[in-house]
């Protein structure tokens, strides 16, 4: 049985009186693609940010590889994001003034402190995503599809246990979207858990599991109990 990478229980995030996420529970397993679907404004992005340690839950518990990250300091959570998490956002994912190679290398450079090693690893990843020819292109000059694949490469560079993707094909046409989805498939092949937030059923159908979200609550498919 695959290891549980992340477990969340009863996550709630309130903004004043409004609960953006209410009592969300889920478990993410290594090598598994989970799609989280739901209409705009249902709380998907807020949930993803809580799972990515960017936003603190108002209530609820979260364990990442068995650790409760909210027991630690800001620096420790930043370190966890660097070491164990990868993010792919909808667009404007990259630092436009850096090249594709440099964008991919950043997390590894931060983690290991050596530029040469980081650039070497980034180069290998760009080759894997068939972007080697675009390595020295400024991120601002990449096409939307290329930029998303570079973002996925960056998410993978430190060998994360969990990758969180927020509408990764939201700004792409169907052909480019397929390329990006194929690249995301490689995340799971690399052994990481993948949570893809989307409102596109085509994207969601790629997942091993689909969770639906509405009004800040996750509804688990019939026969799949909420994780304990």
């Amino acid at each position, binding site marked *: 049985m695959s290891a549980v990478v992340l477990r969340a229980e009863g996550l709630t995030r309130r903004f004043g009186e409004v609960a953006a996420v209410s009592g969300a529970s889920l478990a993410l397993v290594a090598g598994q693609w989970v799609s989280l679907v739901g209409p705009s404004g249902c709380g998907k992005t*807020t949930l993803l940010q809580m799972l990515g340690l960017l936003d603190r839950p108002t209530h609820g518990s979260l364990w990442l590889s068995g650790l409760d990250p909210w027991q630690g300091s800001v620096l420790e959570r930043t*370190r966890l994001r660097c070491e164990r998490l990868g993010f792919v956002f909808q*667009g404007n994912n990259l630092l436009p003034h850096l090249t594709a190679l440099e964008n991919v290398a*950043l997390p590894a450079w931060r*983690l290991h*402190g050596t530029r040469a090693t980081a650039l070497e690893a980034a180069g290998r990843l760009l080759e894997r995503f068939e972007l080697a020819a675009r390595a020295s292109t400024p991120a601002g000059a990449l096409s939307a599809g290329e930029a998303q694949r570079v973002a996925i490469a960056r998410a993978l560079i430190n060998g994360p246990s969990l990758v969180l993707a927020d509408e990764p094909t939201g700004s792409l046409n169907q052909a480019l979207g397929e390329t990006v989805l194929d690249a995301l498939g490689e995340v799971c092949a690399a052994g990481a858990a993948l949570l893809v937030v989307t409102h596109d059923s085509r994207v969601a159908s790629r997942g091993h599991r689909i969770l639906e979200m509405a009004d800040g609550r996750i509804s688990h498919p019939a026969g799949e109990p909420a994780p304990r």
Partner: protein
Amino acid sequence: MAKSRRIAAPGLLVFLAWRDLRASPLTALVLVLAAAIGVGFQVPNTANLLGYEREMLEQGVKCGFGEVRLHPRKGRIAGAKATLARVRATPGVRAASAVLILPAAIGQGDLQSVAALGVEAPDGRWPFRLVEGQPLARGDREGILVGRALATRHGVKPGDQLTLRVVLGRGELDEDVGRYRLTVRGLFSGTFSVCAADSVVLDRSFLASELRDPEATDLVLVYSDDPGGAEGLAARLAAAFPGLEARSWAEDSALLRSAIHGSAAVAASSTAMVVIAVGLPMAALLYIHSLHRRRRVALLAAIGIGGLDAFLVFLLQALFIGLFGVALGCPIGYALVRYFVAHPIFEVEQFTLRPVLAARTFVWPALTVLAATLLSGLYPAWRAARIDPADILRRGP
């Protein structure tokens, strides 16, 4: 698990700071220019103020009455010859001169009251700056040095003859006692010493012999070439010569002391103005710059380059701006100093303000502007470090 660093590697921080600055060339250029203008203004300002202070000390101390003056508590200095020898042998003393001061009058027909200073300078250190002619030879009984302004007033120049009447106080009613016909050997100038005003200089031994007191001395001038250490030297001399009063130049010359304090106050307020004039607009621009970078900071936070790293990146940008501003501002300042050397901003007959071109002329303004730049970068950097990435990323691209 890889061992993680508390802050990013310096190379990464420098890389991020530098590349981000390069991405906004116009903002970076304006910021660098602001720093450069600050340095370019402050360098000649510092050079002129240092020149002003140096000229005052030169005239008032080095070519004036020395770092320390030894006065008798009453009357004249007893045993002046031995006192002068002991003073000259005191550690830290470079030179000592004996001075005898008598009321006098000079002129060609109508006489004008002056102070006649009999000076004995065995070390060649005179309390004035000779600007024309020759100094007095030891034992010269026929020569006189005249202040340049006084000489102009009386229309005399080196080589001319002049009548001098000295009040010797010998109690004699003879009309010719203390009346001399002397040759002007040279002209001197000086602004911050007694010699600056209406005074003439003669050989001390000549005047003393006329007084029939070969050792007659009213004042011993002590030169150490260290105006800053004058207080300490005065204290040592006071201990060594309990019968005399030892006063440092600062204590003895209120005008000089006030002028130097005034110069220091102008320098301090000028520095404060530069800090404000450079720091405030720079802080505003850096803050606006950091606001434009909020999404990038949030993205960096998401990939593990957190608030402390962001703080250091923005602070490094301020440092780069400061360093480039200094690099650009120093040549500008140097050119302005060269201009002011050729065209002094203050030049009267006795006093010419020549800017000081030395390392400290550049170091202090450079450090001031660097500090102003770093200070102005602190708040924007702190704000960048406190960005809530969730809030920024939630708003979308």
